[in-house]
């Protein structure tokens, strides 16, 4: 039975927003009601009621959307599917089912405990499966096993036909194959309301993982030193990091702003067989950074490595559900960093902005590639970026609304300048447009600033892919019921 929360309900202020407290920007932007659906049947009835009433539905599973795509819905209705949280396995055929409302941590835990398998993720515990998987789904095990969407074998989705009637569809490689492909990476909220994902099989969870972190002090970090660290990171993932024995390694170069005092490289590793029996690959990688480490003071002593079972590692990195104001950007990099890029990164991470503190700002570079770059996935999924070796996520968090302008401006200028250097394609300056250096952006890290460029769909959805997605859009959502600022347009 769907629960309806309207403005008079004491739960409304909490439920009208998501994790990013910037949204809704003003009260008038907020949805008129939130419909909490208990199951897929509820969701179908609720969606039909909303469409019949002429309201715009937006869909929320985990509430982690970086932009206002869900909560900016003046007079409309948010369909909250967080209760669609089944995690089970069909005994008759062995197929795993994951409801779109499952929070990832609950998914990791249930899949591990009941079946010994996992999604190829491991972090972002409160993110909902609906957005995570339909937008691609990257995590610490993706280099070893691919993206979450690579493993999906069917999607159960509620579409709205040209007459305004809600039509449940089970899309797989044989039935509605185009819709199935589109739902594997082209982002949520463009084609319908996904209620459930099916997986014929899932990767076996690692038995254990090894964890380490190397810290660097900003006190003695010059532009030359930062350039060295960035180039070391980039060159590794461009070359050695794409060899098969390294695919079990996941690393994040978390370049915090100088006001945070230090930054780090973190590593999670397991051998391809899911054990930590041989850590030579990990040591080889860590040794590259020891010359700059604050802990070792430039000596040859090594950082400590801790080993943990997979579930505990997931729990440690599941993240918290604290709501904050935030702004995010993304880049998929085909090559490592250049000295010019490093100089820009140094400039902005050491820059202070009047009226706000950037101590929670960070320039995160994630290892990428490995199994993600299996070329056969290009035709099977809607993720066109299958040649990148680093995924960037520049981001910043802050507390007060009056700091919004300063924080977002700093990040926007940083990003624009980063892609206006020698590598920049003059026709696409200010963005990491597709070139020998870049593969655009990640739709699960949407950035509405990119709307200023008329080629934003190609940045996120790919150069040739977008026309295909528009065809799917016109066929399965002819009324454009499911839309937001960066959804696939008819």
């Amino acid at each position, binding site marked *: 039975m769907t629960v309806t929360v309207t403005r008079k309900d004491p739960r409304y202020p909490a439920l009208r927003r998501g994790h990013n407290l910037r949204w809704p920007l003003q009260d*008038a932007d907020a949805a008129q009601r939130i419909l909490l659906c208990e199951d897929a049947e509820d969701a179908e009835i609720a969606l039909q009621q909303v469409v019949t009433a002429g*309201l*715009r539905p937006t869909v929320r599973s985990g509430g982690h959307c970086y932009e206002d795509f869900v909560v900016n819905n003046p*007079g*409309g209705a948010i369909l909250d599917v967080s209760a669609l949280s089944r995690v089970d396995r069909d005994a008759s055929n062995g197929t795993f089912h994951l409801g779109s409302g499952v929070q990832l941590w609950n998914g990791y835990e249930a899949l591990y405990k009941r079946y010994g398998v996992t999604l190829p993720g491991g972090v972002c515990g409160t993110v909902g499966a609906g957005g995570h998987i339909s937008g691609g789904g990257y995590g610490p095990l993706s280099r070893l096993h691919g993206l979450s969407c690579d493993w999906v074998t069917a999607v159960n989705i509620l579409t709205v036909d*040209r007459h305004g009637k809600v039509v449940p569809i089970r899309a797989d490689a044989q039935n509605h194959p185009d819709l199935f492909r589109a739902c594997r990476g082209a982002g949520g909220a463009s084609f319908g309301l996904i209620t459930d994902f099916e997986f014929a099989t899932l990767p076996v969870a690692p038995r254990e993982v090894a964890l380490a972190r190397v810290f660097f002090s900003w006190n003695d970090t010059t532009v030359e030193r930062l350039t060295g660290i960035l180039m070391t990171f980039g060159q590794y993932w461009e070359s050695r990091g794409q060899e098969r024995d390294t695919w079990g390694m996941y690393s994040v170069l978390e370049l915090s702003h100088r006001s945070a005092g230090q930054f780090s490289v973190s590593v999670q590793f397991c051998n391809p067989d899911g054990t930590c029996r041989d850590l030579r690959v990990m040591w080889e990688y860590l040794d590259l950074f020891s010359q700059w480490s604050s802990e070792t003071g430039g000596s040859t002593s090594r950082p400590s490595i801790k080993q943990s079972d997979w579930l505990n590692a997931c729990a440690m990195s599941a993240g918290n559900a604290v709501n904050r104001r935030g702004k995010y950007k993304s880049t998929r990099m085909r090559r490592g960093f250049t000295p010019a890029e490093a100089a820009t990164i140094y400039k902005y991470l050491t820059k202070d902005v009047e009226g706000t503190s950037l101590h929670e700002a960070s320039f995160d570079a994630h290892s990428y590639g490995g199994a993600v770059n299996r070329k056969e996935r290009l035709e099977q999924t809607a993720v066109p970026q299958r040649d990148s070796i680093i995924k960037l996520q520049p981001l910043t968090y802050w507390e007060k609304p009056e700091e919004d302008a300063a924080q977002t401006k700093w990040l926007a200028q940083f990003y624009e300048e980063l892609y206006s250097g020698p590598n920049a394609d003059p026709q696409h300056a200010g963005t990491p447009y597709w070139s020998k250096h870049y593969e655009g952006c990640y739709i699960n890290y949407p950035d509405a600033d990119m*709307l200023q460029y008329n080629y934003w769909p190609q940045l996120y959805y790919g150069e040739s892919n977008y026309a295909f997605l528009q065809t799917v859009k016109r066929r399965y959502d002819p*009324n454009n019921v499911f*839309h*937001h600022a960066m959804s696939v347009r008819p």
Partner: protein
Amino acid sequence: MYRREFLKMAALAPVGFRVAPLPASIPSERHAYLGTSEAIHVFAIEKEKWIPLQEVACEAPSCFVLHPFVPILYVANELQEFQGLPCGSVTVFAIGRDGHLSLLQRVRLSLSATLPRSIAISPDGAYAVVSAYGGGSYNLFDIDRKGLLGCIRGVVKETGSGVDLAQQESSHPQHACFDNSGHIVAADLGTDRIHVLSTSGGTLNLHQRYQMASGAGPSTIAVHPTGSFVAVSNRLNESICVYPYDSLRGTVGELRESLLGRAMAFHQRRSMLMVEREKSLDLYLWHGNTGQLRLLNSVSLPGTVTSMVSGHNSILLGFGNELACMSLDDLSLRHIPVDLPFRCVLRT
């Protein structure tokens, strides 16, 4: 009015419908505004001659509407995208005493409200409803006392389609107007529906969907001043249909009358419906108590009409890029040599 009727009216009246202020003086029949693809051309009218006054940049104007009390012009910008977002916009101009326009604001519509083609202002000047042809949606805006648009108060997003897959693949609201009780009636070319919308609860609500004949393609709608009938011009089957209407309840009844006609315009003060048919303009008196249309006169036209705009005592007729003005007093037709590829026109 009996007490029961009063109570019924009070119960149905939309929340927040303001008492209308006294009208301000607006220059009358002295200026004309002509929208081309990228500008508005302002003309002074002197002895029926249109003298160019001003050219103001304005993207894709598709509709001009005046505020009922303050000298403000609202212009719909018929765009697929505005500021990178999938929506059209509305531009608001102040009208000077000399007819000149000054830009006041430009506001974007809600997401998916693309290609707006109609703006309706409530009789009390408190609300504007924009019909977005492309996105199948309607936006309700507040209007402040200076005539500026406020926030979007409500969005109705329609679904559906019609039999003509080329022109009716999805909802296409083409035109809307307020009745005298605060409801909005609208013509949806894509779904063959008349929509009745309400502003109750301070937002926009879909009150009734009235399904018309399949393939009709409603494109223009008018409410009789009595609030008892609506007339609809259907572009696809080239007909004019009259339906009983209860403005207190906001409900449309079964078809009362229909006749052939490609386009129509309504002159409210004269209760006159002007219908274009086969290169002639038929002028009908629209009876408020029966809804019947009584033919008053028929005038031959030099070509096919592409736009019709009712003025104070005249009607502006567009024939492609050509413009003419017909007097409703003596039915004389005068060519206006503007020589501009216009998209919309208004005479004040």
